[in-house]
């Protein structure tokens, strides 16, 4: 649904900005892993496409609020960073396929890289409500870019932090820390969110330990609602066939093993309808 919500609060969390917006309809339908598509630039803007942001948190205040966390990346996020309380914001959501939750009270490692961490806390909450044990591995380039360390420490059994420059926690990447954590906590499943390269690494680790991984991917999106076909990536179906699948409606959460991370940004030759498969003929 589309909501014109009022910005309730803005805060800056180290390298990130967080906006809380009153959006009852979206908050009500929210499940962990959902994202919102936000119109940027205001009236008369030259920016046509909405920007996608994972929902970090929903709260019941004012009928329902959603909060998202973002890094300034380009003109759209720069505009968002200038929003102030009481400004209005046009959101479409909740969008996407949320994280599936296990039936049994298993042990889950939450792996978040940079702002990707933001989406994991609502999942972790839901997992804990189901009796799951939750451990966190959070990373970023430097201390200021590790999101949610405090909250992770409050809620998780263990929290491992990594930074590439060593300014906080272990020097290295989340994928460097993950094998140790999985082994230590005897994890049954991994939940991951971050750049494609991180998800590739996390999936490789999970595959090595032979445990499932649910990964929230991020592809460039023009619509967020499944109509534009710009956000695809190669995913292996139940039938073993690779298809170019829309990450906005069939994702953003995928079983990591199903995503052909090495082939993201290409059309694998064996994908359904790949060029050479006899259909290279149209524009």
């Amino acid at each position, binding site marked *: 649904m589309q909501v014109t919500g009022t910005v309730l609060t803005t805060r800056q969390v180290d390298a990130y900005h967080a906006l809380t917006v009153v959006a009852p309809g979206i908050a009500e339908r929210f499940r962990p892993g959902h994202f919102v598509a936000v119109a940027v630039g205001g009236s008369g803007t*030259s920016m046509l496409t909405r920007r996608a942001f994972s929902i970090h948190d929903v709260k019941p205040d004012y009928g329902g609020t959603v909060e998202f966390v973002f890094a300034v990346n380009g003109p759209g996020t720069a505009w968002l960073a200038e929003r102030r309380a009481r400004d209005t914001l046009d959101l479409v959501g909740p969008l996407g396929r949320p994280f599936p939750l296990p039936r049994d009270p298993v042990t889950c490692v939450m792996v978040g890289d940079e702002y990707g961490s933001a989406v994991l806390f609502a999942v972790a909450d839901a997992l804990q409500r189901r009796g799951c044990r939750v451990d966190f591995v959070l990373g970023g380039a430097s201390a200021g870019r590790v999101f949610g360390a405090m909250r992770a420490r409050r809620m998780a059994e263990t929290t491992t932090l990594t930074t590439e420059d060593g300014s906080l926690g272990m020097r290295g990447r989340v994928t460097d820390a993950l094998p140790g954590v999985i082994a230590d906590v005897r994890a049954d499943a991994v939940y991951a969110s971050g750049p494609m390269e991180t998800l590739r690494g996390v999936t490789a680790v999970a595959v090595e330990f032979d445990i499932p991984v649910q990964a929230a991917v991020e592809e*460039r999106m023009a619509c*967020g*609602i499944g109509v534009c*076909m710009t956000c695809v990536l190669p995913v292996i179906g139940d039938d073993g066939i690779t298809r170019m699948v829309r990450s906005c409606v069939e994702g953003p959460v995928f079983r990591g093993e199903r995503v052909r991370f090495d082939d993201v940004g290409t059309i694998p030759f064996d994908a359904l309808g790949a060029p050479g498969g006899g259909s290279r003929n149209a524009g």
Partner: protein
Amino acid sequence: MPVDMRTYLGHVELANPVVTAAGCAGSGSELAQFFDLGRIGAVTTRSITMAPRAGRPTPRMAETPSGLLNAVGLQGPGVDAFLARELPWLAQRNVRTVVSIGGGTVAEYTALARRLNDAPGVTAVEVNLSCPNIEDRGRVFARDGGASAEVIASVRAVMRYDVPVVAKLSPDTADIVSVARACVDGGADALSMINNPLGMSIDTETMLPALAAGTGGLSGPAIRPLAVRCVWQVRTALPGVPIIGMGGVLTGRDAFELILAGACVVAVGTALFHDPYACTRVLRELEELVAARGYQRLADVIGLAHRPPGAAARHRTDFEESSL
């Protein structure tokens, strides 16, 4: 005073002039979550191809000022899956459906038309001529009147007489009027314009093209002046031929602009990416604008901007209808 918004694509009546643009409404079902597809004039499908197509690698989109570049590459399930699943889904819901087709050879377009021929629920066929002709070194059909006309003639020849064949034109040609005329001579019942002009964007950080495919199609308000000009020129040259106008329609005002230029149907594409309700909103805004200018019938404003300057708008009623 409600406005009579009915319009005609050849002999086919549409309840109103707002349709989705090809390739911008998924399979239809995605938008149905937002509004009742039966409320708009028609849904245009993505361009259906014979075989399934995986499309182009990502990144497939880049934003440009008031525009969007896309290089989806006609990703789609192929005609079999389309006829098995997508078209019946629309037909069951009585959604007017314009089926767009794309091919690499005249034979492929013809084969597609043949497959659609006895499928129930095809309101019209829109021939996407912006496909590379593999028999002519990948030259896009739409650039050339002769190649376009050949496709249209053979599609028209096999398509049931009561299904209008619409030729979809591109602005990337030396003279859109001559391509339009060739298509009409070839048997097109209506024309649709504009498809995306070819554009490109370079990421100045990576210093490489922003799209994996290099070039892509430009859409959105940036191209609206090109669309208005094309509709205007074709309407001037071929006043009797129905035109589906499209290109950067975000609001009822924009749709009205294309209608004043001569379109009798207006397609909404990129706007759907920003606002899933764009079609119904555009329809409402358009109706309000037409009513506010004192017209009771959409038909009375189609091409109205072609009247000589100085001439008053015809059919205008500045007085209330008597209640006696």
